[in-house]
């Protein structure tokens, strides 16, 4: 599995995900600067976490208009899998590759801690190594992670199985206190209609090595490796 990690000015988790991809797949990912309008063919495109363009205007808004995103939009529509983590998720919604918007956290605070997520279904490129309904522990670190979409849109997402992860408590219940940012229906991650594009606020790359205190995040990369090799 050959992956490309896109680097924007202000990305800060690009190296973390580079390390995880290298460790899980054994293949060195290619790092692609946002000004590139083309790059080599890859099996997976990753938009990393960080604060691209200093979150100017809206989180992800400037990055969404960069050269490299035009190329990524065209590859995504051709079916190349795209994974957006945290700021990468914000960029994907601003590009229109994923529905909804990530607004300022409901309590206005930057939240940086481990949360529990429920894997809604193991039927995807990104989650096949997990069990449906499995609860995993993954860190979040963001100020703008409050997922919002209109009620009709949210119903559509539920009906089509486009909700990938929800915030839950340690035993998998959708408690209010398990929701770190006020996201609609506790949504932590969503797919596009074909489930080839995934965006999520939590950082699976930060818990994908026993030395970091856990490996719950590794499953996402193992799933991709299984699906794309």
């Amino acid at each position, binding site marked *: 599995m050959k992956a490309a990690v896109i680097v924007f000015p202000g990305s800060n988790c690009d190296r973390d995900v580079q390390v995880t991809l290298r460790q899980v797949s054994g293949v060195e990912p290619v790092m692609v600067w946002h000004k590139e309008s083309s790059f080599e063919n890859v099996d997976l495109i990753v938009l990393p976490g960080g604060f691209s363009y200093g979150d100017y205007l809206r989180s992800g808004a400037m990055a969404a208009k960069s050269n490299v995103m035009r190329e990524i939009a065209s590859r995504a529509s051709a079916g190349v899998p795209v994974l957006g983590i945290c700021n990468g998720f914000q960029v994907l919604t601003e590009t229109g590759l994923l529905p909804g918007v990530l*607004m300022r956290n409901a309590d*206005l605070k930057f939240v940086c801690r481990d949360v529990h997520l429920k894997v809604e279904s193991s039927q995807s490129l990104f989650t096949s190594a997990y069990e449906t309904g499995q609860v995993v522990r993954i860190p979040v670190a963001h100020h703008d992670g409050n997922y919002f979409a209109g009620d009709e849109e949210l119903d559509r997402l539920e009906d089509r199985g486009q909700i990938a992860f929800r915030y839950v408590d340690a035993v998998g219940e959708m408690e209010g206190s398990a929701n770190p940012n006020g996201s609609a229906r506790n949504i932590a991650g969503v797919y596009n209609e074909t489930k080839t594009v995934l965006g999520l606020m939590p950082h699976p790359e930060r818990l994908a090595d026993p030395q970091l205190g856990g490996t719950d995040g590794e499953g996402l990369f193992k799933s991709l490796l299984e699906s794309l090799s």
Partner: protein
Amino acid sequence: MKARVYVTLKNGVLDPQGKAIEHALSALDFQGVDQVRQGKLIELDLSESDPEAARSNVAAMCEKLLANTVIENYTIELDS
């Protein structure tokens, strides 16, 4: 020509920053503020002198970049 673009949250979209300002105002003993909504003001200096062309150009900018129309409305004011 100058253009001013006001970007505001649509009705029904929660505005936690507006709420926080509302609470702070009441904590400062300002009475009678029923609601606060926070938005953005973006000023543009345009070389265009035809108001109609300027307005349609700025509207395109709003649709493409300046506003996220999933949650935000925009209004445009022109000054010649």
